[in-house]
């Protein structure tokens, strides 16, 4: 199973969940999964959009009780 870390970006308006993920990517190892927690539904589309653009992997997105859990994998 891949190593996984969680970034709790609930309630983050600034810098916001995507910016937290970009910062978090610098700390992750290649192959590591990162789960972002966000209360901004926009994260469900903007995080995968960026992930595809920089060629990492979007593993999945799930909404539970108003919190979006976006799972990504650092691939390079």
């Amino acid at each position: 199973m891949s190593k996984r870390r969680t970034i709790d970006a609930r309630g983050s308006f600034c810098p916001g969940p995507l910016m937290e993920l970009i910062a978090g990517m610098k700390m992750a190892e290649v192959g590591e999964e990162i789960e972002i927690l966000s209360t901004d539904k926009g994260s469900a589309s903007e995080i995968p959009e960026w992930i595809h653009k920089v060629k990492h992997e979007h593993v999945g997105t799930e909404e539970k009780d108003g919190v979006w859990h976006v799972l990504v994998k650092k691939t390079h």
Partner: protein
Amino acid sequence: MKILIVGGGMGGTILANNLARRLSNEMRSGKARITLLSASERHMYQPGLLYLAVGRMTPDELYRDQASLLEQGIDFQVDPVEEFRLDRNEVKTKSGKIHGYDVIAIATGSRPTPEEIPGLAENAELFYTEETAVKMFNRLRSFEGGKVVVAMGVPHKCPMAPLEITFMLYDYFKQRGILDKVKLHYTYPIGRVHSLENVAKWAAPEMDRLGISYETLFNLKEVDGAKKVVKSEEGSETDYDMLISIPAHRGMEVIEKNGLGQRGWIPTHRNHLSMEGRDNVFVLGDTTNLPISKAGSTAHFEAETLGENIAAMVKLGAPVREYDGKVFCFIEAGLDRATYAMFDYNNPPQPKPPTKAVHWFKLAYNKLYWASARGLL
């Protein structure tokens, strides 16, 4: 109770003064002692660097003697911590002294790290230190026209700075009478021109109106100084005649060396402001890993929360309130107008159109800051 504060920036200074006022009786009777350890005998007003870069402040206006900002009774020592021995409730300083504590607050701040992007430190104008802000001021004075690109790393201190420097440069070049020879190009790491959606909704049309071009989803990857090209992680590139950058930041090296947090950010409880897994270790300002703005106002509001809580721990044996994620940021929208954004974990900001009155208030705050650091504002 021995209270040890590490770091003499905005967070550490406000916390020390706040506690000294709340605990004046306890300090006199010997029941409480406050020690502040800092790496410098001077205190810098960091937001002033933005103004220094465009010639609106001078270096001497950025500093005060740290001791002059502190309440009587605070034991202030210029002796930075080198070892955090959290399991033994003590730290070791550069001079070799050991300071024990009952409660420690860590407010060591952050540092720009342009060296992490190949070519950035050598080829970009930066304004996050006095030296680089003065260099940028001189470069701007001699600039006669061309393409000016603004680019930033993540995370960075003061999330409003990218917009502020862009709009201030527009007015700067206009006042110099060379605006028609300058092309301003703004880049931003996410899919809109600012993290705050409501700020982005105001700023993008403002850039359109002023003829400032922009590219979103642009994360700095490298700078080719010979070709004068900056490249992004997303695969795009843009040429420049002058590159202005807000570089990525890391927490301080001492935090990383002591294993307190990756890249110098300490895992922190978002409401209690305690270090994860430690009840007597508190963290504030840029040093936390919280998903909120790395800004002076964040440190200010966190310091007020911690001041109340640590004083209550002395007087009542337990903290009494939670931090709600409050942040307040001025946003300079040029050299003569400004707005602001206030928000917390649950409430997004609703910025209003920029006015001259808010700009004047910001200029007044540049002076009032010293009262704020003393805990009077």
